[in-house]
């Protein structure tokens, strides 16, 4: 796809909003244009940005395709699947941590941190870098138009902490988040608009790291989610892992036990497994290769599709179990689903397609590119939010029940799962002791009966309750889940009308202060990255200029006066040395470049003169 022509003057950036699919494996931006959503990518580059990050020796963070390629030569400094760590603590990610090639730690509020090249990064900061890259690519495709308003998608089954982390990532990237939209819902928007569907639709979305199923009813532009279910830790990565485990077992005979646990080696295995898996989607058999020249290991293993399907059948069964639950909540039988839509790169696996088809008893739709459909849907939603249309009405749900921990550690549910959002509930609290001026409560999300089995959203402290006898204060706490699926809690003491203050200790989340400082450092990093790119460009430019100068000197040098000639040679030598000196920054390089340009002006003039004379004497340019 080529550049999109936009009249920058008439299309002030404030009128444009991007839809961004922030994926486990790949990320992509899209935009509404001429009555339909389109994927945005600069000319010559293919659409998506791999959600990969490479940490260079110089301390720069390289994002996207280059990072993915660098993973092959330096797996120890490359990270993938950051999304699986969003809004999670260390103990939640034990499984995923094994394929991370660097040490992990945790902040005081339980946010995972990756330690790379002596610096710690939260998943929010790393996702921010991916978002910035997607935005930059999109802006380039728009001919340099600066866009800051975005709609970002998340798995429908993401809980509050994971959504919050996604929004924080966008904030750190300096983006204005119009809305967090659920991926399967976004996909249904892209499909529904295309085909003017009507009826009940099941969206089966198996991505790189997450699985969602959403059941929707669609009619006359109303997209109503009836139920959603899923698993935020089930995706293509888990399919890779089954192959990795086999490789590890078989390689155990060839390698030292410590080498088998080496994180960079595991990263290499993961990449080999992924390649093998992708080949098996088109070929009946494929090889997994592992080559470690330094330890003399050459390993090759054939997998047939039949063997692979048997190895991964339990993973697909888990997705179907989620489908059963979603259907039960929607009070529908599989036969009552009119259309099934496949989303996410992992639905390219033939075994996934055939088992989904068998489960619902109908052929699933996969007309739209499963890697693009979510970003396209996000662009539709961005168009709606910018006031582009009132034809589309999206009614989504909250995937998990919201509850408060009671005295005995049980959960009292205040908002049921699959409630249409925005939704709210008000809960009354009172005091147990005379004069008590604070009340603590613990908010959780999940379906289990005990609070410890649910996801903690944080401990809330109500403060500033007027001093009254026990049981007299009436504090009304309002729980509001907004259209993003994000919770806000407000409180009011009803007998006196004073509004109680709430202090929140977020679980697995960043504080405003932390976001602020990350935002600042992200800008600093962006500046540094920009400078690094500029410096690299200048080195190339100086090289080109130096070669041209040398050619010029050999042709017209004798015609220059000695002083000028020495001036040129000095500037040339200095510029050459500067280009080779890795310590110099863009500003210093620019000075040398400009100096070379200045010094060579007389030479250039002389050359022009030569050219002109040659032309007049009837010689061709290359004969001069």
């Amino acid at each position: 796809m080529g550049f999109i022509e936009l009249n920058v003057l008439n299309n002030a950036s404030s009128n444009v909003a991007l839809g961004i699919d922030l994926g486990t494996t790949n990320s992509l931006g899209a935009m509404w244009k001429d009555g339909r959503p389109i994927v945005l990518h600069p000319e010559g580059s293919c659409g998506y940005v791999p959600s990969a990050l490479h940490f260079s020796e110089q301390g720069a963070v390289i994002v996207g395709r280059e990072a993915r390629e660098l993973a092959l030569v330096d797996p120890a400094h490359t990270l993938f699947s950051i999304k699986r760590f969003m809004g999670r603590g260390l103990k939640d990610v034990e499984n995923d941590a094994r394929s991370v090639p660097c040490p992990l730690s945790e902040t005081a509020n339980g946010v995972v941190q990756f330690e790379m090249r002596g610096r710690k990064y939260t998943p929010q900061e790393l996702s921010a870098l991916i978002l910035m890259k997607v935005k930059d690519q999109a802006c380039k495709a728009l001919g340099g138009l600066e866009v800051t308003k975005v709609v970002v998608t998340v798995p429908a089954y993401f809980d509050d902490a994971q959504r919050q982390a996604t929004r924080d990532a966008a904030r750190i990237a300096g983006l204005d988040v119009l809305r967090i939209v659920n991926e399967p819902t976004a996909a249904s928007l892209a499909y529904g608009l295309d085909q003017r569907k009507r009826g009940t639709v099941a969206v089966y979305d198996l991505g790189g790291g997450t699985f969602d199923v959403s059941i929707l009813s669609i009619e006359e532009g109303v997209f109503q989610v009836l139920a959603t279910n899923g698993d935020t830790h089930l995706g293509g990565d888990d399919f890779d892992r089954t192959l990795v485990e086999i490789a590890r077992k078989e390689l155990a005979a060839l390698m030292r036990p410590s080498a088998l646990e080496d994180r960079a080696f595991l990263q290499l295995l993961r990449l080999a497994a992924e390649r093998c898996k992708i080949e098996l989607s088109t070929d009946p058999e494929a090889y997994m290769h592992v080559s470690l020249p330094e330890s003399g290991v050459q390993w090759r293993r054939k997998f047939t599709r039949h063997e692979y399907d048997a190895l991964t059948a339990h993973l697909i069964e888990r997705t179907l179990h989620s489908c059963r639950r979603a259907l039960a909540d929607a009070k529908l039988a599989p036969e009552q689903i009119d259309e099934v839509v496949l989303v996410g790169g992992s639905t390219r696996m033939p075994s996934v397609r055939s088992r989904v088809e068998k489960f619902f008893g109908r052929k699933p739709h996969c007309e739209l590119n499963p890697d693009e459909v979510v970003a396209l849907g996000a662009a539709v939603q961005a168009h709606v939010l910018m006031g582009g249309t009132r034809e589309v009405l999206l009614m989504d749900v909250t995937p998990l029940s919201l509850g408060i921990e009671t005295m005995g550690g049980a959960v009292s549910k205040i908002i049921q799962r699959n409630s249409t959002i925005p939704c709210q509930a008000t809960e009354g609290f009172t005091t147990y002791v005379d004069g008590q001026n604070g009340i603590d409560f613990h908010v959780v999300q999940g379906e289990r009966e005990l609070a410890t089995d649910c996801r903690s959203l944080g401990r809330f402290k109500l403060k500033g309750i007027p001093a009254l006898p026990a049981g007299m204060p009436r504090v009304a706490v309002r729980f509001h889940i907004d259209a993003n699926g994000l919770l806000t809690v407000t409180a009011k003491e009803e007998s006196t009308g004073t509004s109680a203050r709430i202090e929140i200790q977020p679980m697995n989340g960043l504080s405003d202060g932390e976001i602020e400082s990350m935002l600042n450092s992200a800008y600093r990093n962006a500046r540094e990255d920009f400078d690094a790119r500029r410096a690299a460009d200048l080195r190339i430019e100086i090289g080109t200029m130096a070669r041209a100068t040398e050619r010029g000197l050999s042709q017209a040098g004798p015609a220059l006066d000695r002083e000028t000639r020495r001036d040129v040679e000095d500037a040339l030598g200095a510029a050459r040395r500067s280009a080779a000196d890795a310590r110099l920054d863009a500003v210093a390089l620019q000075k040398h470049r400009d100096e070379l340009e200045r010094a060579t002006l007389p030479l250039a003039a002389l050359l022009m003169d030569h050219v002109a004379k040659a032309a007049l004497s009837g010689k061709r340019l290359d004969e001069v």
Partner: protein
Amino acid sequence: MAVCSKCAAQLETPLACGACGSLFAPDPEPTPFECLGLTPDFDVDAAEVRRRLLRASRLVHPDFHGASGEQSRAAAERATAALNRAHALVLDPAARADWLVRSLGGPSESQVRSMPQDFLMEVMEWNEALDAARGSAPGSAARVGLEALEASLAERRASVLREVRRLLVPLPAREAPALALARAQLNALRYLANALDQLEALRLDSPSPR
């Protein structure tokens, strides 16, 4: 029916004006029936409720106030939350009946804890069946029997709802004795709903192969 304070048009919902698009934040919050512009009644026309929900949603949904300021976005959030709650409540017969009993000054579930007399025995019977099924393997006799139990509970639920309807249509006067009787039926309904939820959970844990 109320009129718009801005343009004097007839209001279909107190949350927003369909004519001039103004959003309102009525205090106290309107009742579920008021939100949808309906008169309180046990009998509702589900299709009509949905039509009203969609019409009102197109006025108040935050999606259509995304480009406006923080304040109107917040008002849209509040109004839509009220509307969604109203829709869920009005379409759920148990929740609807519960609200009607309360709003007519009838007893709450903590004031009248009784259930219809024959009901307690039944509760004990099905709890036994549930416990037995929970302790046994999928495919065992105890689990196979659950299907019949589920069907009979669903039938029981329908008959309790018919009784609730008999008590609440036409709507009784405030604090009428029928409200306490309806409350007892609603208590039974809670037990039934709980048992049906547990049956569904059991069924989903031992899925039939497809």
